[in-house]
């Protein structure tokens, strides 16, 4: 393999894989996308490249694997430093973007998935409330980060846009399947508009999974998770 060859091990439904794809698109980096069917089996390459977690995405740059979606996004930003910047340049703005990205992964995404996956109406209701509270916080964060422009990153999509935007497909799925409103035009108008702008962006639109395909996939996923009795 050439020292600058890029491979991305991923799967089309995964929001985490989407983050890596968007980052690579922003920098106009060519790469080979290797679809993993992780619910069925994991390839030898995946197991070898990510022995710690055995999860996607994995970016393989030359011979070297980089794992964890947000770490991959930062890596891509730093290696292709001459391309459009993904993280802001100011250290405080970077810290704010990183803080919210950590919040999304540690707190918000688990409550989002719990809307679909948890048992019982009470649990689902609690998860929904938590997810909506999170979106209220992000609506407020948007005002501060965007500084009057279209994205968290200002006039172009950045780290926090990618971190949150990668979940939009799943947000839409959950809105349909649980019959709830998450990103609501009247309650979170900034996020509502942002979601449309993000989804239509050149670096995003061709890799964002179609909602109806994701709905079908989610039915299969819920059945599998609940059927096996494991979370």
């Amino acid at each position, binding site marked *: 393999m050439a020292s600058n060859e890029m491979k991305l091990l991923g799967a089309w439904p995964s929001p985490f894989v989407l983050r890596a794809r968007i980052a690579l698109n922003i920098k106009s980096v060519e790469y080979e996308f290797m679809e993993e069917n992780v619910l069925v089996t994991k390839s030898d390459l995946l197991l070898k490249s990510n022995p*710690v977690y055995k999860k996607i995405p994995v970016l393989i*740059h030359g011979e*070297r694997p*980089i*794992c*964890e979606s947000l*770490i*991959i996004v*930062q*890596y891509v930003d*730093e*290696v292709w430093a001459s391309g459009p910047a993904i993280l802001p340049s100011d*250290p*405080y703005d*970077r*810290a704010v973007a*990183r*803080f919210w990205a*950590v*919040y999304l992964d540690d707190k918000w995404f688990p409550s989002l998935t719990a809307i679909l996956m948890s048992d019982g109406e009470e649990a689902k209701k609690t998860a929904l409330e938590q997810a909506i509270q999170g979106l209220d*916080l992000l609506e407020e964060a948007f005002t501060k980060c965007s500084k009057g422009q279209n994205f968290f990153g200002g006039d172009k999509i950045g780290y926090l846009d990618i971190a949150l935007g990668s979940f939009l497909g799943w947000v839409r799925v959950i809105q349909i399947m649980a019959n709830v409103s998450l990103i609501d035009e009247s309650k979170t108008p900034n996020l509502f508009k942002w979601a449309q702008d993000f989804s239509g962006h050149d670096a995003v639109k061709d890799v964002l999974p179609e909602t109806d395909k994701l709905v079908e996939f989610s039915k299969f996923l819920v059945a599998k998770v609940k059927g096996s009795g494991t979370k």
Partner: protein
Amino acid sequence: MAEELKLFRTWSSPYGFRVVHGLKIKGLEYETILEDLTNKSASLLEYNPTHKKVPVLVHNGKSICESLVILEYIDETWKHCPLLPQDPYDKAMARFWAKFGDEKVLPSIWSVFISQGKEQEEAVAPAVGNLKFLEELLKGKKFFGGKTIGYLDLAFGLLANLVNILEEIVDLKLVDAEIFPLLSAWMNNFSTDPVIKDCWPPRDKMVEKFKAMREPYLKKVA
């Protein structure tokens, strides 16, 4: 202009100590506000409204939360004595292993600490398995950062401090010097490094605190 630099932390939180050590490496002066988490100050709630947790670094009125995010902020704002490696790949590896430490290593050690009997025996293997990754990382190096203490050493620093306190309380050796020669040496090198050695919470208070934290878990079995 005089810089305002404040650190909100508790006397014992290892996450707070990551920032203490980072600020020490950079030679920065700052004000410490010790918080009592049962009675949080209005300032803390103002500076970290989302999580209401420590540590929080306040720099010229702006607050930065989450210990690893704070370390990167410190490193990017004061560029001397770098904490993170310069090379993007090495940086990615440091970030990856720091996350692994928080998500896997520490929780698995905690599981050993709060369990007893058979449950505890079963908790040991995953903890040891996670620690083996760290042992591997130290091959050919004195510190995770190489010749000097860096971001990953600070991220794992709580192991150097906390592990033998927990081992003493449960009377169980996890980081055995025969199985983990490099990690044991690192724990010693890190703890005795001039930058670190005077920046630890008092050991006797820590033993007392963690014994008390273990109590509710013991009562469950009784």
